[in-house]
Structure formats: C-alpha cells, structure tokens
C-alpha cells in the first residue's frame, strides 16, 4: 500500500450529514484527487448517494466545484441541500 500517495484531508459535515455521521469533523488519509472523491470515500459517513447538484462543497472556506482538486492538508466542507430564509 502506497501511503505516500494518500493525502490528509479534514472533512466537516453539516446539518443532516453531521447527524448521520455522528461527528462534525474528522481527519482522514485517502487517495483522493477532487472534492467529489472526498464525497465518495465518506459516503458511508454522510449517507448521501451523490452530490447531484443539490449538495454543495467548500474547500478551505471557499465555495468549490465537485471537480475542484484537493491538496494535502485541505479542509473539505460537505453541505447537504440548503434551506435558508
């Protein structure tokens, strides 16, 4: 197993994702290239099938796209569908 290829990513879960995961934040080491990859490897945690455009993602406090690249040490925020107002 090539651990050198793995990145350390902090993942933060919000609202329903947090309740489903049972934690607000965790740090994982995984072989991920994009925000979408992070969504996939944490699927069992947040419980959602696919981002499908309704979920949103931010990287280091900036709104991002699902195909945005993630770097070692990034914090990825996983947002379930919003409902403000």
């Amino acid at each position, binding site marked *: 197993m090539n651990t050198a290829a793995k990145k350390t990513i902090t993942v933060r879960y*919000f*609202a*329903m994702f947090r309740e489903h995961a049972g934690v607000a934040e965790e740090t994982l080491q995984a072989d991920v290239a994009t925000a979408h990859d992070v969504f996939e490897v944490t699927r069992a945690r947040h*419980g959602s*099938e696919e981002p499908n455009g*309704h979920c949103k993602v931010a990287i280091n406090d900036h709104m991002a796209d699902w195909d945005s690249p993630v770097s070692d040490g990034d914090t990825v925020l996983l947002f*379930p569908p*919003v409902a*403000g*107002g």
Partner: protein
Amino acid sequence: MMEVTQKAIDPAALQRSLANPAAGGYCAFEGWVRNENEGHVVERLEYEAYEPLCLTEGEKVLAEAKEMFPYLEARCVHRVGLLEIGDCAVWIGVVSAHRDEAFKACRYIIDKIKVRLPVWKKEHYANGDSGWVNCERCVQHGIAD
C-alpha cells in the same frame, strides 16, 4: 452588510440603520416561521448556518443586487438557533431613491439567500418527528425518517 445572529432580530433598529436623506423608497422582507409545511404541523424550527461562508456569500449577493438595481443601502440578517412560530428567521432591508430598485433588489436578495447560503433548517413537528428541509431524500437512511 450581511450578518448571522443567534439573537432575536430587531427590524425597527435595523431599519433605522438604513436612514438616508436621498432615499425615497424602502422595501423590507422578513421570513417568518410558519405553523405548517407541506402538510405537516410545525411546532418550531432549528436553523443551522456555517457563518464564515454565509457572510462571504451574502456579501456577494448584496453586491450583485446593487450592480443590477442600484440602491443606496441594504442589509441582510439571518438568525440561527431554535425559533418559534412567528419568529423572524431572515430580515432584508433595501433603500433606494425610487421604489423600483428597492423592490427588485430586495426580491433578488431573498431569492439568492435561500439557495446559496449554507443554512439548514430542521422542522420539529407536532407529532414529535423532525426533519431537515430539502434533505429528507438526500441521505440513504436519514435520521429524520
């Protein structure tokens, strides 16, 4: 200016902060917690927000509105925490020289606030259940089921 607060929103104080002698029109919108949603009797609502991105995204929305509908002053406040029926969850106030810009900017702001800010609401129903709005089908085995 965009704000997120845990305290009750005070529309009168907010409105006073927008006073401008060149203003001829003031349009405000408030989102209130109502007692029903999609057939469920709602007893209270719990709002959660990720404040850092609410602020940056909210400021973007206000700037976009000003670009399209030049106004003099505008402010938006979103409340978080546990809210009761009738409580104000979001307040938006816009003042402009004439009424058209105030109405249009105010409408633009609330429309975008609702879909772009990282804010979530959990409804607590009369029967004891609860559910995250817009989210019931987004999780395989939702806690809200």
